[in-house]
């Protein structure tokens, strides 16, 4: 396809690809500093207990141990991401009065080797008074349940009520109403790189530098400032390459606070690296929840009303769980027009490690329920599952009162293209195969400002040097999703140069303007806009100079493309980019050309400036004797606006389907009174390459006015439909119904037998 762009829209290899695949690229995990100590946590064996005393004397006697710290050594207070609501800032560096989950850190040691640190941990004696614990949200809200945080009655951490239209009236007018209940299991994050930080405190200047595996250098800077009682600016956060975050690395975690505290105490660099068991048992995950959902439809399949209630298993702290609670409701309504909608949500504290934003940010469990219920309704009403979806789709300009407005919206053409392609792709199914559908949409960054930043949501600075090379500075975080590539592509496109002309300086709070980090699929749109603006300022200088040299009037447009600046309608009239840069710098008293850019959404509703969306179809096969479900083939028709890097977008879609399939089929975290029963990669089952289905991805490009070059989200939307599409495919194949995710074969076999029994009973009743 001929496009007006020379960089964006072309499949482009990851700019970090060579460094990462050869092992040259450095992650925090790979870093060592001279004189470095190793920190390790003493963790609670109890889910809920008072700390009576901590005796570190034996540990301190062990040669090589340089420091032991406890809650008493923490100078700052509590922290959290909901900084606008201080009561929700409930995280602490080291528990000082009581512990709230198994594995909560109560002390930490610093030693010269990892082995000594591990031995020292065993020598720290902690005396506890065990308190009764609570492990299920429905138990947690009972009046006689133990209180996990004093100030939160009935252990209710956050609530949400959202409503539009007239829901009761909608149900009254409906020809068909059904209610379903679901319990959705939590999902672990399992980033390839574990949480780890390396802190170095300079006692002379009182300044701290920390390298950390984080999704947001800025959030970490704020969290540390609260925990350490330091000025933000005295903390420099550097984010090297990061091996995955998925939502689990937004919160400031004890790897960072402890490394910092121990470094401040010892005056030596300290590294804290979690092991895989610590990852599973003490870091954040996707929330589990109980859910009730009711839908009302007209005979023809038009949705009139929906009501959804959830109560989530929040765990011991807040993280981004309160936001997930909100988005769980909002994204359940997409990509459909639901004229009357009511949502009531409760997040409870329980004595488990806590739940937060995880890829799909709240949407995954609630979209599952909604899409599965829609298929049950369609079947009973005798309507084709794709047709019932087609009937209710949003259109450009659609507004949910008081909540969001959808500008670019390609969902109708997406579904039409799907209907066409399905016929060619899967003309015939084999025995015990089925097809399931699910619609999806997701934000391109959030508008909410719980972090309470006075800064723009994203910033960038471009510096063009005498030889035309460009230094691009931004805190925007590439955590494996490929934003570094997107960032330089956007910068290159705007300046009309190649990505090889740009050196990116990402993720360093001391050198680059603030960006809120990689969550909510925000970097392409928000940081992309900031970069485009910064590059645009420099471009303007070059264009102005070229125009003056050409002696052209303002009415004639100049463009920067392929390293030239020329009259758009007379391409032969212009100058080379390099020539103009050199001239501009000389004219500028020798100062390099600097452009600064920033972006904050305005007047875009409560949620996001733009929404990526589409529809997924999944073909699955069921083994009726074992219950094994095989995800065979996936078809996705996708509107993510102008695609910046098709390779990157495809990678994000595949990654979403991968994590979504784990949620659908294999991943769960069984828990026995606060104890995670499968805290290893061996026992926690992740879908592997050989289990992955083929994925066909078709694009329906749109242009979103809010996005850089019209781009919007591509990183998370496709996780939410994966599990319901799979469950719907199984439903299609054999009629088995599920009230949870994680369709393990034993569960499926039970559901198949139930379905067979019901079918027989129905047949009997007919006779």
């Amino acid at each position: 396809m001929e496009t007006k762009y020379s960089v964006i829209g072309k499949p482009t290899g990851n700019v970090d690809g060579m460094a990462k695949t050869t092992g040259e690229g450095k992650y925090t995990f790979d870093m060592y500093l001279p004189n470095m100590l190793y920190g390790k946590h003493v963790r609670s064996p109890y889910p809920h207990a008072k700390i009576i005393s901590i005796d570190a004397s034996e540990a301190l006697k062990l040669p090589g141990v340089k420091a032991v710290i406890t809650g008493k050594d923490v100078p700052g207070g509590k922290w959290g991401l909901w900084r606008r609501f201080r009561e929700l800032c409930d995280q602490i560096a080291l528990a000082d009065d009581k512990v709230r989950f198994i594995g909560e850190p109560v002390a930490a040691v610093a030693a010269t080797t990892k082995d000594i640190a591990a031995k020292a941990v065993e020598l720290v004696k902690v005396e506890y008074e065990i308190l009764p614990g609570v492990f299920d949200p429905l138990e947690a809200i009972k009046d006689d349940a133990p209180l996990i945080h004093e100030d939160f009655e009935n252990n209710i951490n956050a609530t949400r009520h959202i409503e539009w239209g007239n829901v009761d009236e909608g149900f009254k007018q409906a020809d068909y109403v059904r209610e379903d209940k679901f319990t959705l299991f939590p999902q672990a994050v399992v980033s390839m790189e574990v949480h780890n930080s390396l802190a170095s405190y300079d006692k002379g200047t009182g300044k701290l530098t920390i390298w950390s595996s984080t999704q947001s250098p800025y959030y970490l800077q704020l969290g540390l400032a609260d925990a350490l009682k330091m000025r933000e600016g005295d903390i420099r956060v550097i984010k090297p390459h990061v091996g995955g975050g998925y939502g689990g690395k937004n919160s400031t975690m004890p790897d960072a606070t402890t490394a910092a505290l121990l470094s401040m105490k010892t005056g030596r660099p300290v590294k804290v690296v979690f092991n895989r068991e610590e990852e599973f048992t003490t870091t954040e995950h996707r929330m589990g929840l109980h859910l009730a959902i009711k839908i009302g439809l007209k005979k023809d399949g038009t949705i009139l009303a929906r009501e959804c209630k959830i109560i989530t298993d929040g765990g011991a702290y807040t993280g981004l769980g309160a936001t997930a609670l909100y988005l769980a409701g909002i994204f359940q309504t997409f990509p459909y027009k639901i004229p009357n909608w009511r949502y009531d949500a409760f997040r409870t504290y329980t004595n488990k490690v806590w739940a937060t934003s995880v890829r799909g940010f709240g949407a995954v469990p609630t979209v599952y329920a909604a899409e599965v219920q829609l298929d049950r309704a369609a079947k009973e009403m005798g309507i084709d599952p794709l047709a019932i979806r087609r009937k209710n789709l949003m259109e450009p300009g659609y507004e949910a009162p008081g909540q969001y407005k959808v500008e670019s919206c390609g969902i109708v053409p997406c579904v039409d293209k799907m209907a066409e392609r399905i016929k060619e792709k899967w003309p015939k199914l084999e025995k015990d195969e089925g097809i399931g559908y699910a619609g999806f949409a997701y934000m391109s960054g959030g508008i909410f400002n719980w972090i309470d930043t006075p800064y723009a949501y994203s910033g960038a600075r471009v510096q063009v040097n005498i030889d035309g090379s460009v230094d691009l500075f931004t805190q925007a975080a590439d955590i494996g999703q490929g934003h570094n590539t997107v960032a330089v592509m956007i910068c290159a496109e705007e300046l009309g140069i190649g990505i090889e002309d740009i050196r990116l300086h990402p993720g360093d709070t001391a050198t680059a303007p603030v960006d809120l980090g990689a969550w909510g699929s925000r970097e392409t749109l928000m940081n992309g806009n900031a970069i485009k603006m910064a590059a645009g300022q420099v471009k303007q200088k070059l264009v102005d100079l070229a125009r003056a040299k050409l002696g052209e009037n303002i009415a004639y447009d100049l463009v920067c493309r392929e390293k030239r600046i020329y009259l758009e309608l007379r391409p032969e009239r212009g100058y080379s980019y390099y020539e103009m840069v050199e001239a501009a710098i000389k004219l500028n008293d020798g100062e390099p050309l600097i452009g600064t850019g920033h972006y904050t959404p305005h007047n875009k509703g409560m949620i996001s400036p733009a929404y990526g969306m589409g529809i997924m179809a999944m073909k699955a096969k069921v083994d009726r004797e074992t219950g094994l479900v095989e995800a065979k083939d996936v078809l996705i028709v996708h509107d993510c606006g102008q695609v910046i890097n098709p390779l990157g977008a495809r990678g994000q879609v595949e990654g979403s389907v991968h994590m979504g399939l784990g949620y659908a089929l294999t991943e769960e975290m069984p828990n026995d009174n606060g104890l995670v029963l499968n805290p290893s990669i061996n026992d926690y089952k992740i879908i592997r390459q050989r289990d992955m289905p083929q994925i066909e991805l078709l694009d329906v490009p749109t242009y979103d006015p809010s996005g850089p070059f019209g781009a919007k989200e591509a990183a998370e939307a496709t996780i939410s439909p994966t599990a319901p599409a799979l469950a719907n495919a199984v439903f299609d194949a054999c009629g088995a119904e599920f009230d949870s995710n994680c369709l393990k074969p034993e569960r499926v076999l039970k559901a198949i037998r139930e379905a067979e029994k019901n079918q027989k009973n129905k047949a009997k009743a007919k006779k």
Partner: protein
Amino acid sequence: MKNITNSFEYFSPKTLEEALKLVSQFDKEGKDFKVVAGGQSINLVMKQGVIAPEAVISIKGLSDMDYVKFDEKAGLKIGALATHRAIERSSVVEKKFGVLAEMEHNLSSVETRNWGTVAGNICHGDPGGDVAPVLIVLNANVKMAGVKGERTVPAEDFTLDFYETALAHDELVTEIQIPTVPPNTGVAYTKFSQVVGDFALASVAVAITLDSKKDICSDVRIGLGSVAATPLRAKKAEEILRGKKITDDLLAKAAQAAMDESDPTDSVDASGEYKRELVGVFVKRVGKEALERAKKA
């Protein structure tokens, strides 16, 4: 992953003799030692802190024992250091013992197969291992050596209990011997796991030998994995089939018998009851596959 935290003495003998001497000496001294081959199982239990030996003897350097040999008379000989990957990629294995290559192809990942040895797999004594059920139906023998001499036990008698084998503390496995597959024989193996290459929830191996008219089952062996404290030979199920013409009905009866013989326990993944059902399903399916193969053999 946790790190191995205990320190230990490390020995890397270059010959079998040297290795056997060390093993026997440490055994006499009462030293807490462990032999390591590919380390794919032992490193895991050391990382978990389940064992913390004072000394580790790596036999990886005994390169003489890294072989896969075949001749019609003696059958297949797998040296103690032959890796899973070597079996999977051996052309003679593929031709003559296809079931072994099939089994290996779904045993974990290429990385593990490149490191792990077949001998180490059975020495580990994990009832969930893939190798043992297949060796059992192939009528394999395990050759062991100590300073005092050599002995051989049938594969089906090699595992005694959870992680316990017939191997004495001062012995090493030197070779696995598999006789040439008799004519008119079909062998098949399937493990059931939700994720490809994962440890089995249940696994079934079946070898069926038909008479010269390819009608009556003259011999049959059924091996089960993951459904008892040891890999299991389902002898009662075999009895039902031996000497008969195998039909679907008869296979169903054998499947029921195998279910009764198995004794699976609950795990995080699945209940014991479900695993028992799997035994039934797969004795039927794998039995059928073995029968088809026997007919074509």
